[in-house]
């Protein structure tokens, strides 16, 4: 057999313009935060990338005041057509700095460069382009001719898509005339702070966007600040519930985009090779750090063996390693903490009796990596079928009939996404109707677009991001 080893093809880390230190962005200025500084690391090497000055409670207050001032004095009353131009500028600048942002994202997050380059950053720019155009058309947002912004939006985002989640939050907020205080995730603050530079480059009025690096306690300070009008949170269901509790009885409007345990349902008449690609994309994209990941494969019993054989071969071709390498398919797990969680859950899968298959791909000596893993023989009652693993671990269950597929797919408190694979059109539409999930991908998976609303049912949260519907989260009708 011929062995063809692809030579390393790393993107240069110099492109990231990495600086030794980063600071919070408040009222249009980078200022020293009075919180405990944090060191952000490259999860692929465990090396410190930069020291990041973090916000304290008093910085939160400063940022909210700056946002309030900007809202009252400038942004809230600026004609939509003018706001639009700032947002368009931001979109353009993201495109111009795309390579820098992509490399920086990969360094800070651990995701493969091909994903940050081909998905995260271009889609982030697309979100600003899309929403920029809405800013002077809000009369058509479906809330009547008198739709008004809410005021100051507090936004807390996760570490899995740092820049993209920022775009999902900030673009609609700005387009609808709100001002923003955003807290990026503790482990991935860098692209958000480069985004702050972009806001300055775009000459966005000071205070319209404020970025506060910090840990969960700063997120809590932010959402509990009395002068915040709107909270948008993407993250775990556990923290989402805490936030929902904490805003109970206040005037604050809330949207939550939380966890998921999506079923990817494959019927025996599916386009099998594309289904395999879709399953792989569904669970191994971004190391499985995706809230809408297709983490439960529901395969029809009549096709499960053939499907698993194809799946294992396909997974074995996935290239795990240096996230900066352009040929890497699976990058690093974002943190030691997350890696430990994935390990703990996979161990529970084994001890509960599921059959484990792990790709034979070699693992780097350092950094946080986890080889793609497929559990077959999984039953609904096992933890790996119920809990969100948020890693490259797939649980395979089987079903016999469409009704059973629906029943198993819906048998979870979550309801973010679902996949269906069959070439029978009628069944697709039937399944799409029955699946209790905010997004249903049929014969595809993990598609995102600023024009398509995204968000969950049940404990996956409420409110939508994207499309006309997404504007509702930031407007008062």
């Amino acid at each position: 057999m011929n062995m063809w080893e692809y030579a390393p093809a790393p993107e240069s880390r110099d492109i990231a313009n990495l600086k030794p230190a980063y600071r919070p962005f408040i009222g249009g200025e980078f200022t020293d935060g009075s919180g405990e500084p944090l060191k952000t690391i490259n999860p692929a090497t465990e090396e410190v990338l930069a020291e990041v000055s973090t916000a304290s409670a008093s910085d939160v207050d400063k940022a909210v005041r700056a946002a309030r001032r900007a809202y009252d004095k400038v942004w809230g009353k600026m004609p939509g057509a003018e706001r639009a131009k700032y947002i368009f500028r931001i979109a353009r600048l993201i495109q111009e700095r795309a390579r820098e942002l992509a490399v920086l994202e990969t360094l800070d997050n651990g995701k493969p460069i091909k994903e940050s380059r081909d998905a995260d950053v271009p889609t982030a720019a697309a979100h600003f382009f899309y929403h920029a155009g809405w800013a002077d058309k809000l009369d058509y947002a479906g809330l009547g001719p008198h739709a008004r912004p809410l005021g100051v939006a507090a936004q807390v985002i996760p570490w899995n898509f740092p820049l993209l989640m920022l775009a999902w939050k900030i673009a609609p907020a700005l387009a609808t005339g709100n001002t923003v205080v955003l807290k990026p995730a503790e482990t991935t603050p860098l692209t958000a702070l480069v985004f702050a530079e972009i806001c300055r480059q775009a000459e966005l009025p000071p205070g319209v966007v404020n970025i506060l690096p910090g840990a969960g306690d700063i997120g809590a300070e932010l959402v509990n600040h009395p002068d915040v009008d709107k909270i948008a949170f993407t993250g775990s269901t556990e923290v989402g519930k805490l936030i929902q509790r904490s805003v109970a009885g206040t005037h604050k409007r809330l949207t939550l985009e939380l966890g998921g345990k999506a079923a990817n349902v494959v019927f025996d008449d599916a386009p099998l090779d594309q289904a395999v690609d879709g399953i792989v994309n569904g669970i191994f994209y971004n190391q499985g750090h995706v809230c809408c990941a297709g983490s439960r494969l529901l395969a029809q019993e009549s096709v499960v063996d053939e499907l698993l054989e194809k799946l294992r071969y396909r997974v074995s071709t996935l290239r795990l390693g240096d996230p900066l390498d352009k040929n890497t398919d699976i990058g690093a797990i974002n943190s030691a903490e997350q890696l430990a969680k994935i390990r703990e859950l996979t161990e529970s899968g084994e001890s509960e009796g599921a059959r484990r298959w792990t790709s034979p791909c070699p693992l780097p000596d350092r950094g946080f990596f986890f080889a793609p893993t497929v559990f077959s023989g999984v039953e609904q009652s096992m933890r790996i079928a119920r809990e969100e693993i948020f890693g490259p671990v797939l649980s395979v269950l089987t079903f016999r009939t469409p009704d059973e597929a629906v029943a198993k797919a819906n048998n979870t408190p979550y309801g973010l996404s679902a996949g269906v694979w069959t070439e029978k059109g009628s069944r697709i539409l039937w399944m799409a109707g029955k699946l209790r999930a905010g997004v249903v991908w049929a014969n595809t998976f993990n598609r995102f677009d600023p024009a398509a609303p995204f968000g969950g049912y049940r404990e996956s949260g409420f409110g939508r991001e994207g499309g006309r519907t997404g504007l509702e989260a930031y407007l008062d009708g």
Partner: protein
Amino acid sequence: MRTRLGGMATATLPAGLADAIRDDASLRRFLHGLPGVDQVGIEQRAASLGTRSIKKAAKLWAIDTAISMVDLTTLEGADTHGKVRALAAKARRPDPERPDTPPVAAVCVYPDLAATAVEALRGSGIGVASVATAFPSGRSGRDVKLADVALAVRSGASEVDMVIDRGAFLEGRYGQVFEEIQAVKAACGDAHLKVILETGELGTYDNVRRAAWLALLAGGDFVKTSTGKVSPAATLPGTHVLLQAVRDWYTATGELRGVKPAGGIRTTKDAIRYLVAVHEVAGPEWLTPGLFRFGASSLLNDLLLQRRTQLDGHYSGPDYVTQD
């Protein structure tokens, strides 16, 4: 009416596949029972694999491998003995100044020129492939097609590139296509049979997959995308479908069969994308001229130029390789 499908020894096939070729109806059922191919999905996968970045030693290895997989082709009405001899010389020594350059796999010509090619390549180990069966349209009677094959074989061709009857295929007369391939295979004797599906005329990836399985069931050693006379010729996603078919065939039977994209592959960059697909869709076992070929003419010179660039560290120019 149940028509028994002719001749082939089915004893070696696993039960499911032997059953598939029992008669016309079962062949049809089998082909229509193959999993569908989603166009958007396969094109996306092909595009995504197409972003692999192959550098340095991996690139040089790919270039040499690609050269060794070229079926250097001339299929023009204006082909002459002289043209074929020139091509044969090129095949033996693609880059005369770089004797370490590997020879190509075969030279591919029309059957009336096969003897010339055989003569010019004697002792080189390079194959002679001859198209046959009323190439490129395949529109003639079975006897004429088989006579065409006989001419090629008689002239010493070691490989025969036949075309399937696309008309019959599109009419759903799969049994007829199957039997024709079998008949040609029988006429080939020891020569290897490549079955040209002309994917550009089949219209859908589903049809491409069915045609590929039909050719494999009928005994084709290779499935080949195109004649080069129809646009589109070879495409990356279409080749993915063929690679998937030979992999699935291998899973089902343990037999390795080959794939040959032909037409429209002109640059090293294209060729490397195809090799990546071979590597990751079918598997590393297929990275050999025995199981993968490029049907091409101008591709070879680009491979040679890129080879020089890799070895010399600077760009070369079109006049540093031979125009044949």
